[in-house]
């Protein structure tokens, strides 16, 4: 059983994490920690009681984001039997955190190395599910004979191009909601035999 103090500590930590998600999604990863403290309603110093450095906070966030995303894709992918179902699961998981993800792919090179690696791990999780579905469909002779990595990179390239240009494609509404079905349908058509 946790003490009242422990519960309070956890609740503050949670507030900081939620605020960081919101601030980074809106302002990018160069946003000052003071903005996170303000959003969370805590003093600036409180952030560093919970995270020893800015790097630690950012790395934690990306890992947490990756864990949530990985679990969502995993659960959805296991029920999906074809490429389109998997891609739908991928976009559904990303759609929940669209702005945060856009910041992540746009500003990846500004982040500490550990954080960049945590992000790379997120893509590997998707690559794993992608390879499983493609291999299964390949056995059924349903898709073209294209190297697996190029097929995955083509999907990621298409997806990231749209996300990175959200301001042109969909300035006023979530991009994946608007273009998701078209991107999935087109990609599936491209790889189909």
């Amino acid at each position: 059983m946790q003490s009242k103090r422990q519960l309070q500590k956890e609740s503050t930590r949670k507030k900081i994490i939620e605020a960081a998600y919101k601030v980074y999604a809106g302002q990018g990863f160069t946003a000052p920690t003071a903005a996170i403290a303000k959003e969370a309603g805590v003093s600036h110093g409180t952030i560093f009681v919970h995270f020893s450095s800015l790097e630690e906070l950012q790395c934690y966030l990306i890992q947490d984001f990756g864990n949530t995303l990985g679990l969502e894709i995993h659960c959805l992918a296991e029920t999906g039997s074809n490429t389109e179902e998997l891609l739908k699961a991928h976009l559904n998981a990303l759609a929940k955190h669209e702005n945060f993800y856009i910041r992540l792919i746009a500003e990846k090179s500004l982040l500490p190395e550990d954080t960049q690696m945590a992000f790379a791990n997120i893509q590997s999780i998707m690559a794993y599910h992608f390879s499983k579905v493609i291999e299964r469909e390949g056995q059924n002779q349903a898709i073209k004979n294209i190297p697996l990595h190029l097929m995955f990179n083509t999907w990621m390239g298409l997806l990231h191009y749209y996300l990175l240009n959200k301001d042109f494609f969909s300035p006023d509404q979530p991009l994946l909601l608007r273009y998701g079905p078209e991107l999935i349908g087109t990609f599936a058509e491209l790889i189909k035999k």
Partner: protein
Amino acid sequence: MKICIACGMPMQEAAEFACGDTGKDYCVHCARPDGSMQSFEEKKAGMIQFIIKTQGFDKKAAAQMAESSMKKLPAWKEYFV
């Protein structure tokens, strides 16, 4: 839900566990044909190969990625002290 101690994959269905045994802490991908868990070197080599096959990355970058994700997993803690 259990998470594989050697690669971090969530395990729900029995088929995802090594030997289909839900009592195991590692997954089907981290088991050797005899059911025992792969060694650090075996797992690292497998991960590198998998990253190259599925994402086409450079071998050096793939090795860095494999090490970075292994660093966070309970099975390999002693290798990163």
